[in-house]
């Protein structure tokens, strides 16, 4: 596991990639760049519900090689926004 602090440009490209994953996993009718990095993913922001979050968690787990459990108590924090999710992936990814 890579726990070192990622560089800013790596984070930016990871953010674009994760935005793309969210859009394709949920078949959203928006483009990845339309996801505001700090807008809430749940409820009023992007409008995702807990089942959508579970879907994203499964796809992210597979893509980045670490367990992101849907019933993790920290999920509210991890899935606060695209930015918080990207930061979590960056510090936990195995691949």
């Amino acid at each position, binding site marked *: 596991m890579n726990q070192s602090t990622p560089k800013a440009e790596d984070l930016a490209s990871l953010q674009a990639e994760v935005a793309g994953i969210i859009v394709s996993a949920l*078949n959203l009718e928006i483009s990845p760049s339309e996801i505001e990095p700090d807008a809430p993913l749940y409820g009023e922001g992007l409008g995702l519900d*807990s*089942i959508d979050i*579970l*879907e994203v968690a499964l796809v992210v*787990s597979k893509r980045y090689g670490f367990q992101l*459990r*849907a*019933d993790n108590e920290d999920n509210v924090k991890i899935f606060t926004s695209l930015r918080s999710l990207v930061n979590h992936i960056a510090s936990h990814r195995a691949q």
Partner: protein
Amino acid sequence: MARRRVAVTGLGLVSPFGGDREDFFARILAGESCIGHYVTDDLPRPLSLPAVQCAGFNAEAVLGKPLAGSMDRFCQLGVAAALDAWQHAGFDLADKSAKPDFGVAWGTALGGTLAYEQGYRELWQKGRERISPLSVILGMNNAASAHISIQLGLGNSSLTYTVACASATAALGEAYRRIRDGEATVMMAGGSDAPLAYGVVRAWEALRVVASGDEETSYRACRPFHSDRTGLVLGEGAAALVLEDWDHAVARGAPILAELAGYGASSDHSHLVRPEADGQIRALKMALEEAGLAPRDIGYINVHGTATREGDPAEISALRAVFGDHAEQLPVSATKSMHGHMMGAAGAIEALITVMALGQDALPPTAHLDAIDPACEGVRHIVGEALRGSRPRAALSNSFAFGGSNAVLAFRAAPKR
């Protein structure tokens, strides 16, 4: 090794209504019963009771005469449902090539009971010295999984689960595990039963759990959760689901109907026929946990609900324990009120209904439920007609068998397409 995700890519059945899966689901949504009044002239006491029959099913037309003749009815029904599901999943029936990583898991409670009964009649009723040389291959409980494996070229495991009323649910759950763990890519899973043998019906009657009815009232004989429920209605039928490794389904462009996301299996280890909420609670929690679902995520449960005095309140009490505050809002229906208890096929037909209900605008009701037993209150019973507007994203299908075997399947809607 990472767990694989399991997609449902095909649904098949032999409908007692006579039509296809869409017709079956539409009628179930409408609260229509396919329970009829079943009369035979068997001696010493003719049968006269409510039952479900696939009267329009013509095995020779579906399977051809030689093949149909080598099968007991439970097997004919099962193979027909499997072929239907296979085509629905976009596979080619003509492709008999070997598929070493495709398998079958089948449920049946009574297996070839009609074939055995026929043998007994020949021996003891008609006084014959010999019976049909086909008796063993007609009667064996794994005949359906064997025939399905041969018809479709499935070279992975061919397994049969006999877990009374939870047979098909166990078959589906164990098939799911094989794909999840990477031991198979595709599994044909489901169940079939043809329990209307004279001796079997008499045995169930003797247990005093079978509903009564006459020509006029049999269609509404099965009344789960009703304060005057009188028991279950035996029925014949078959249903099958094609379970498939998620990535395999995506790669071949198959439509993903739902995800089978979790399976819970437990044993009451207490009593042969009196169900215990504790064992059911463990199976329910296991299915939710494995699927990564919280109780509030569940938008529909197709309950076991057979309409027995003891079983119905035990199940509701398990649901209240697991779902807590959410239970009162949790839409629940017992579709056995319409299609009866298909024994080893029950879990498969109910899984089919659950998959079809996911993401849809309508959930099937419990029919004839005009007076709810106070002991069965505490959930949102869907009464009389379909519940509109709830569009569940995740749902459970419960099967709680005699013998204390509990099996629960957790399904999630496929991402919107």
